[in-house]
């Protein structure tokens, strides 16, 4: 089972890729008003982190990173659950998922 992949791209490429994905996620959060899409963008950000961790883990031969990714997935799931619950609750009250509507509290 050893040496399955002998020739992999340099690790920096993964770094750049994850950063790019992360930035796209951030951009999405900033760009969109629909809460559910923002939620997805955040998921995207988390995934970029996952990718980064996995790459670090693989290149360093350190399993810890992959275990951490596992925890991130768990948390992401929980977050999504709660987030969607909140969203549903809001939608019931406001009939909208536009976050710009959520600006009663200010000042």
């Amino acid at each position, binding site marked *: *089972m*050893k040496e*399955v*992949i002998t*020739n*992999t*791209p340099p*690790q*920096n490429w993964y*770094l750049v*890729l994850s*950063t790019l*994905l992360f*930035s*796209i996620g*951030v*951009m*999405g959060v*900033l*760009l*969109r*008003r*629909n809460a*559910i899409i923002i939620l*997805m*963008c955040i*998921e*995207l950000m988390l995934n970029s982190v*996952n*990718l980064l961790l*996995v790459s670090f*883990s*693989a*290149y360093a*031969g350190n*399993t*810890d990173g*992959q*275990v951490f990714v*596992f*925890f991130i*997935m*768990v*948390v*992401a799931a*929980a*977050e*999504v*659950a*709660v987030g*969607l*619950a*909140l*969203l*549903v609750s809001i*939608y*019931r009250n406001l009939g909208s*998922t*536009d976050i*710009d509507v959520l600006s009663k509290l200010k000042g």
Partner: protein
Amino acid sequence: MTSDIVFFLLAAVSVFTALMVVFSKSPIYSVMWLIACFFSIAGHYVMLNAQFLAIVHIIVYAGAIMVLMLFTVMLLNLNKESEPHKSIFTKATAVITGGMLFLVLLAAMRSTQLGAYEAPVTTDVGFVQKVGMKLFTDYMLPFEMTSVLFIAAMIGSVVLAKKERNL
């Protein structure tokens, strides 16, 4: 070299789908693009020899989270072009900000010497046994504590989603 080509292919797919998630008009398309994105990321995992995570990733993200999202989108009937547009100015700011963040991050990571990581040393780090061993020995406590997290999230979701006003 093949792996490089595969990497670039996958990377291109990832970035493209990610961009599509952001720029899709309809939420439902966003969801779909995101699922595609997740699959491409799973591909990266496989390339990095993290089979276990690749599987879990598909199951959790594509199978659970995204389905949940899709379900919500449908439930709330958000599948329409309901989103009022942000002004061009805001949009431009958002894009520029995202780009700048990318640049700043790159700048911050410039001249990164990850010398030790030129190539994976051991390649079985991502295998199920390894991850499993780690998870249930070293990471036993976090693993257990996730149960607390989950219960909290579960109760929370239940509480928030209950429809009736009073018991």
